[in-house]
């Protein structure tokens, strides 16, 4: 019998280190599934996020102690919550603080004891509200982005401090400090445990989405290191995005973000070769793109568009980027890509969030679109206009795009000069090598 069959509940009384490990992994799995709801419930009851997190961790420690011999209880989330509540009561009793919080929790515990063991001990609707409050608390603007990310991954994602540290390639102690400081900051600022008011909601949700997307790009861009956790980090961000989209089903940008992440992640299997070298889009084997994710992402994008339309607003920044990713995802080749649609999406992005990088990407899309609106000359004109932008002065992107366009127009000498300039500016050794090779191929 394998331990996937549920047999672990039946014969959990047997001991041994293998069983201990199995139990520990089972506890970890339960924690991942339940921790957000547990911390959320406790935060509502204690009105203290930091305390709630500590209590939940203590309950987890108790589970690790007990479950290897007693087996995983039938309703593990309720077990953990009950233990944490009891700990809260013990703490207050010790400090002789029989205030209304104690009364609230004690009443709650008592009510649970009267329920059948199999019945859900809590109201799922209220729990979902609590989890949403938890997400907004973890991403509160009084916290730095790093703190928001660390708290979200640990409290909402159920990752351990070690896992968060590994994902971001920082020491565990750094993450610990960030979390401790974040909790203190939240307490000091007296941050209420609530979903923001309507007039504030959009801005706060944008912050929450940005945290999830940051986690995703950290896993996706893999700027340093080659830890196994990093593609998993992108997957974790996708899961968090889906959780969030389920919590706010009417928010087009939450759907848009899910779509963007799924459509981007669909290309992961083709992004690097066997030795880990990055493969550019035009050279990727499209057969290796993940079709399930593409289908999922497109469904989310369709929902995002429908919601935006119902609201009478245009697509948001995530949905627009997802639209671009969708164009790539459904195209059989670079040449057969719907480039005019991509240009239109970049037009929208440039209106919503104008930036020289968006303008440059738009220029690349223009160069791929059919003439006369598109083509290399049309794109070169746009790129030349960007040449004066000081924000791009230190980046290799502008000369490398310009080099590409000049090469396509047969202006080899100018192209070579641009590639060489780009190589000088490139930060990454691998990129520099590619650019120098391009320069060399233009003759000298």
């Amino acid at each position, binding site marked *: 019998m394998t331990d*996937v*069959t549920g047999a672990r*509940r039946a014969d959990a009384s047997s001991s041994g280190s293998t069983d201990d490990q199995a139990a520990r992994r089972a506890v970890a*799995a339960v924690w991942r599934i339940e921790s957000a709801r547990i911390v959320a419930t406790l935060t509502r009851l204690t009105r203290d996020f930091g305390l709630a997190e500590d209590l939940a961790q203590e309950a987890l420690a108790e589970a690790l102690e007990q479950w290897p011999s007693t087996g995983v209880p039938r309703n593990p989330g309720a077990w953990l919550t009950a233990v944490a509540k009891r700990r809260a009561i013990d703490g207050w009793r010790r400090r002789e603080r029989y205030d209304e919080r104690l009364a609230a929790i004690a009443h709650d515990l008592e009510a649970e004891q009267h329920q059948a063991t199999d019945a859900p001990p809590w109201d799922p609707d209220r729990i979902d509200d609590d989890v949403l409050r938890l997400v907004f608390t973890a991403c509160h603007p009084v916290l730095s982005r790093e703190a928001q990310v660390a708290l979200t991954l640990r409290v909402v994602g159920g990752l351990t401090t070690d896992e968060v540290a590994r994902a971001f390639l920082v020491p565990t102690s750094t993450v610990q400090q960030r979390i401790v400081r974040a909790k203190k900051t939240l307490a000091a600022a007296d941050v209420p445990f609530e979903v923001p008011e309507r007039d504030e909601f959009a801005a706060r949700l944008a912050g929450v989405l940005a945290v999830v997307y940051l986690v995703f790009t950290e896993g996706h861009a893999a700027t340093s290191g080659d830890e196994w956790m990093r593609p998993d980090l992108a997957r974790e961000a996708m*899961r968090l995005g889906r*959780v969030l989209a389920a919590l706010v089903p009417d928010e087009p940008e939450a759907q848009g973000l899910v779509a963007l992440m799924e459509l981007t992640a669909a290309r992961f*299997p083709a992004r690097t070769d066997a030795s880990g070298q990055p493969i550019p889009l035009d050279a990727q084997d499209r057969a290796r793109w993940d*079709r399930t994710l593409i289908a999922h992402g497109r469904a989310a994008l369709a929902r995002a568009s429908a919601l935006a339309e119902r609201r009478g607003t245009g697509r948001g920044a995530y949905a627009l980027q997802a639209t671009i990713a969708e164009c790539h995802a459904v195209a059989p080749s670079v040449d057969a890509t719907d480039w005019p649609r991509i240009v239109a999406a970049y037009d929208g992005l440039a209106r919503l969030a104008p930036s020289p990088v968006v303008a440059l990407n738009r220029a690349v899309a223009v160069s791929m679109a059919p003439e006369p609106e598109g083509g290399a000359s049309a794109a070169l004109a746009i790129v030349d206009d960007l040449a004066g932008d000081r924000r791009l002065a230190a980046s290799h992107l502008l000369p490398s795009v310009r080099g590409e366009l000049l090469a396509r127009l047969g202006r080899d000498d100018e192209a070579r000069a641009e590639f060489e300039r780009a190589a000088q500016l490139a930060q990454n050794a691998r990129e520099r090598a590619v650019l120098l090779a391009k320069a060399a191929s233009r003759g000298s």
Partner: protein
Amino acid sequence: MSKYMLIMRADETGVRAYEQIPFEQVIEAMGRYNEQMMNAGVLIAGEGLSDASEGFVVDFSGEEPLVTDGPYGEIRELFNGFWIIEVASKEEAAEWASRAPLGPGAYLEVRRVNGPEDFPQDNEWIQKEEGWREEQAERAAKG
């Protein structure tokens, strides 16, 4: 993260027990379970299968495959449907599986779903299959 398929199976006791439960109740329990997995962001796909009386069996024991109508006489366990979830560990898959609203006579077989990394990508048949998947996706996109 890996994908796992939760394969629903039931023996005769399970099938009969299932028939006793009001349809509404089944729908609600399953709906609740599905919703939990959706809310946790782990559900990728899932389908149920219609009544076994609409099914048939192709038996490969003889020289020629033999199609037998309806009766599942020789089959003691019925495949009733599946879920595909994406989770961080085998244990997480087991935890979700053990939360399924199923009773005596029901079994969930849990299997990891192979991804591209499980196959040699230079194999011509693997490439052909991927090509087919791509075509399907394009067709779906156009339709």
